[in-house]
């Protein structure tokens, strides 16, 4: 055994030297010239966006606490249905902590209306979801549901909610077709892919001044849909190439090669941060000087954590107000989550729960009353204005641009529509 | 019940004649004794650079018991394997009744009429003795998956015949009492016999026995010799590889001797015993177990 190491280790050492020599030959130690793309314009010929210092939290945003005088039956229950475990758990945890926070705040302020909270685990799996959803639907004390987080599971269960008349607000499923099934109980608490796509196109071209945009999509429902609407909104001449990657992929050499070949100045990555972060990092490492744009699925503190300095070139689109920038929310959230900061869709979960809690406070403690209440709801939440169309889409949705500044995601203002 | 299964209900003991009729229904047909059944012509097998079998030619005649002997590593089993399709000969032919066996799949060779046993017993351990034999019988059956699923009349008929013939074969080799025991739990001797029954079940024209007496005591060998003769008398041709000279000399009609992959002698047992080349070959390797007793 010892003999093996004797052979192996010198071999590695020898080779490391090769690597090291190469490093030092091009100037002073490993990676001193990090060569990251310009974050603030200039070097790459692109415009930069000013950081937005003040966040437009709607002054009259509805809070779950209400007026503190609400009265309701002690069995009144809200539920979260979605991933709690499994590979998709993180998104679900972000959401139900938001819901938990809303309910905690409500119950603290309203001693006579203690709303119960139940969670049902779907693992984010369309085939698993029917069981928990049926269970939730059969529990008559549940008057409203926050969920389901993913488009796939929403598709496989929307009908069950519809049959039971149980209203639910999805805080994160963005597939446009979800509102075209005639489900009256389905409400979407954020913009769908059709809203974000054109905004992303606008950010890439008009706002950042990109002339050559490269669109990369993952193989998720979300990524595919968003890439499609983004490409459609881009001027034909500005789209220099497209590529597809797969969920779980960690090496993007081929895609990076294609981007470099295309001489693109802006890359739009339509997917989630798990692939987006290494992709951006590898782009920059290969010498990409342009900007990187990701949608709300990429806009996550994890992105910066994983991509490091490479993330300086990143911009994000999101039809949301950044909850982690609202200090009061972030602090309160951390108490519920056990210390972790709010993540993607935490605010949406909080807002969705707030709307239902407001309904309960107003005596809407049956499913049909709750559905009617949501349908006619018209008020600001923490992240946006909530007013639904007849199909369950939100009516007007500003899409915000975000950028990375000093290792944080900061708002760069609203992306003008049209 | 209109079948030929001896019905235990009537309390009658089955006669040996009845069993023999079931085991070898074709006995009367296979009587053109002496004609060549299988002909090996210039058969050569090489592994890499090593020639295991070097231009070996001989014929196996209908109705005879042919012994194939030689010192260890002489190529006996290789010859066997080349005939039964395990190895592909690099040169030469094996023909059976005029049709070539070379290049045929192992199962096709079996169906063409060559059956074998293995030197190191290779039964289907999880199966009962009877089931083992029925696998051999299945070589002649035609039912396939749909027929089996829906239990077509042919399937039912074949299954019934299988049990009947399988039991008769077990009776023939003398282990019918253990028909429903898993073959793994049979005694060594019974396993050897079962291998022979299983090979016979494929209705071969030529039965190849690869050291069937290995590990037997003299009494068992005696029984085996009787059994081999019975098999021949029932119209089968037998090719026998065996170390035990007494057994070989006692049971075979003719003998082929191999050494270092070449044929060095061929003839009646008497002739072989006196052949100087054979004696020379065996003197070199003679030991207590394998020597001429």
């Amino acid at each position: 055994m010892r003999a093996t190491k004797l052979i192996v280790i010198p071999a590695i050492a020898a080779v490391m030297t090769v690597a090291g020599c190469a490093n030092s030959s091009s100037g002073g130690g490993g990676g001193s010239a990090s060569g990251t793309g310009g974050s603030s314009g200039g070097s790459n010929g692109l415009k930069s966006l000013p950081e937005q210092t003040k966040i437009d939290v709607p002054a009259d945003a509805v809070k779950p606490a209400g007026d503190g005088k609400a009265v309701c039956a002690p069995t009144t229950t809200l539920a979260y249905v979605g991933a709690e475990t499994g590979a998709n758990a993180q998104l679900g945890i972000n959401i139900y902590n938001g819901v938990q926070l809303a309910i905690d705040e409500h119950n603290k302020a309203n001693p006579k209306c203690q709303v119960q909270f139940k969670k049902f685990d779907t693992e984010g799996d369309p085939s698993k979801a029917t069981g928990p959803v049926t269970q939730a639907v059969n529990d008559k004390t549940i008057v409203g549901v926050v969920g389901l987080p993913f488009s796939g599971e929403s598709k496989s269960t929307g009908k069950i909610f519809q049959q039971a008349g149980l209203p639910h607000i999805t805080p994160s499923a963005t597939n446009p077709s979800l509102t075209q099934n005639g489900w009256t109980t389905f409400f979407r608490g954020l913009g769908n892919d059709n809203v974000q796509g054109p905004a992303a196109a606008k950010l890439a071209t008009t706002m950042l001044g990109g002339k050559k945009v490269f669109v990369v999509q993952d193989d998720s429902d979300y990524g595919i849909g968003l890439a499609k609407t983004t490409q459609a909104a881009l001027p034909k001449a500005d789209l220099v190439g497209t590529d597809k990657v797969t969920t779980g992929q960690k090496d993007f050499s081929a895609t990076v090669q294609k981007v470099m070949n295309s001489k693109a100045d802006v890359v739009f990555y339509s997917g989630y941060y798990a692939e987006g972060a290494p992709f951006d990092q590898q782009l920059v490492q290969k010498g990409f000087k342009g900007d990187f744009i990701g949608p709300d699925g990429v806009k996550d503190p994890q992105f910066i954590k994983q991509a490091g300095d490479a993330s300086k070139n990143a911009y994000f689109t999101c039809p949301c107000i950044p909850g982690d920038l609202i200090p009061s929310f972030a602090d309160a959230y951390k108490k519920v989550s056990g210390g972790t900061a709010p993540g993607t869709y935490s605010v949406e979960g909080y807002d969705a729960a707030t709307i239902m809690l407001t309904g309960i406070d107003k005596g809407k403690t049956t499913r049909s009353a709750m559905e009617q209440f949501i349908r006619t709801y018209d008020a600001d939440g923490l992240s946006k204005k909530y007013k639904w169309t007849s199909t369950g889409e939100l009516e007007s949705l500003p899409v915000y641009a975000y950028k990375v500044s000093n290792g944080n995601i900061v708002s760069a203002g609203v992306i003008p529509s049209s | 019940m209109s079948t030929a299964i001896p019905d235990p209900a009537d309390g009658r003991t089955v006669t040996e004649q009845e069993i023999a009729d079931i085991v070898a229904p074709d006995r009367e047909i296979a009587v053109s004794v002496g004609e060549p059944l299988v002909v090996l012509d210039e058969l050569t097998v090489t592994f890499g650079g090593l020639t295991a079998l070097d231009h070996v030619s001989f014929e196996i005649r209908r109705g005879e018991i042919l012994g194939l002997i030689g010192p260890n590593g002489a190529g006996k089993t290789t010859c066997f394997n080349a005939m039964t399709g395990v190895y592909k000969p690099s040169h030469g032919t094996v023909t059976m009744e005029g049709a070539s066996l070379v290049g045929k799949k192992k199962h096709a060779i079996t169906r063409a009429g060559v059956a074998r046993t293995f030197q190191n017993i290779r039964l289907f351990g999880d199966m009962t003795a009877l089931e083992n034999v029925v696998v051999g019988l299945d070589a002649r059956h035609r039912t396939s998956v749909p027929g089996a699923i829906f239990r077509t009349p042919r399937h039912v008929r074949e299954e019934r015949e299988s049990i009947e013939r399988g039991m008769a074969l077990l009776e023939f080799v003398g282990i019918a009492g253990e028909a429903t025991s898993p073959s793994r739990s049979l005694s060594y001797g019974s396993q050897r016999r079962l291998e022979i029954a299983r090979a016979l079940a494929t209705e071969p024209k030529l039965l190849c026995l690869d050291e069937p007496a290995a590990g037997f005591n003299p009494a068992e060998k005696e029984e085996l010799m009787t059994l081999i003769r019975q098999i021949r008398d029932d119209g089968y041709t037998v090719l026998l590889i065996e170390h035990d000279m007494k057994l070989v000399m006692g049971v075979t009609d003719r003998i082929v001797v191999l050494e270092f992959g070449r044929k060095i002698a061929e003839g009646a047992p008497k002739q072989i015993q006196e052949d100087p080349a054979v004696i020379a070959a065996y003197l070199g390797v003679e030991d207590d177990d394998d020597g001429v007793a």
Partner: protein
Amino acid sequence: MGINPEGPPMGGAEAAQLDADELAETKGSRLDKLRGRWRALPRWQQWLVLSIVALVVFFLPVINPPIITTEPGTDFPLACFDMARFALVALGLNVVVGQAGLLDLGYIGFFAVGSYVAALWTSSDSTYVHIPFLWTLPLAMVVTVFFGVLLGIPTLRLRGDYLAIVTLGFGEIIRLLASIVPALRGNVGFQNVGAPPGTHDGKQIFDNSHGTPWYMMTVAIIIVVMLLLGNLERSRVGRAWVAIREDEDAAETMGVPTFKFKLWAFGTGAAIGGLSGAIFAGQVGFVNNQKFDVATSMLFLAAVVLGGSGNKFGAVIGGAIVSYIPNRFIEIANYKYLIFGVVLIVLMIFRPQGLLPARNHLLAAIGRIRQWTGTASGQPEAAAATDAGRITLRKEEDQ
């Protein structure tokens, strides 16, 4: 005992009797007494017991027994359906792995093909001709058999370990193709997959939130499949499979066309996999590329091995357990695979034959053989000796 050899073509009574024997016989030496008692029971009592068991199984979701129930975590009838689905899958995989001894790590591929067949011909998202859902079941079987043969022809000549990796690759290819081929809609998937017809009080019976009808249908299918597989087992085909599993070379030498029968095993397994996939698609009502991964393939394999590779009752029970445990104990959802992994190791060490070890009857009319054995050898005690032999074997296995 009057066993009628000219019995009905399905051999219903006899087959059931043999299956029952098999079930009882396989429980290891500790249960020998039980087996003996079971055998001693008069026929009608055996039937009575079996019928009661069947009835309880059939109405399990309606009974919804406390403690056993998976509520409030997940709907019990749907959990029951999931058990039945897994049982059916395990039944199919058992043919391939348990009977023929072919290690198939890509069985999920067949399941996926079945699901997509149901989706393509019934979903509102599909542009193909729509046919009634029930017709997609045989169609799914035909299509998966086609895929099974397509995969089998180049690969079944390979030896065990090579076959394992190639089948694993096949499963992955099917999953990837589901993402790549636009007609299969990748992650977007197919909504509103069809269901069997029928309404009750104006509501659809086979609704995707009502597990009971789906469960009962699947259980009925399982029973039919088991009877048919039993027929196969006690035939030339079943014997060929076991022979191949035990010693492929010897089987070939005994005239078994091993390639052909391996292909049949693959095809049969594929058909059952496809069937379960189609039923699954109908129940969930939605099909996309999400759940057809290697890990699920491994769960299927775990089900077969847990229950007892080669024993169809074992496979069914194994399938049901693998599906039930995570639904019953949701707390362990995150530890599910960890626990399965450890269980697999422990099982292989202490009870490699699974809960119900394989002991297949490969011949019909066992009773007749026993009598014949006794008479032909002229030893009245031969039958008893036979039983003793069995017990010996089992002790060996138990070590």
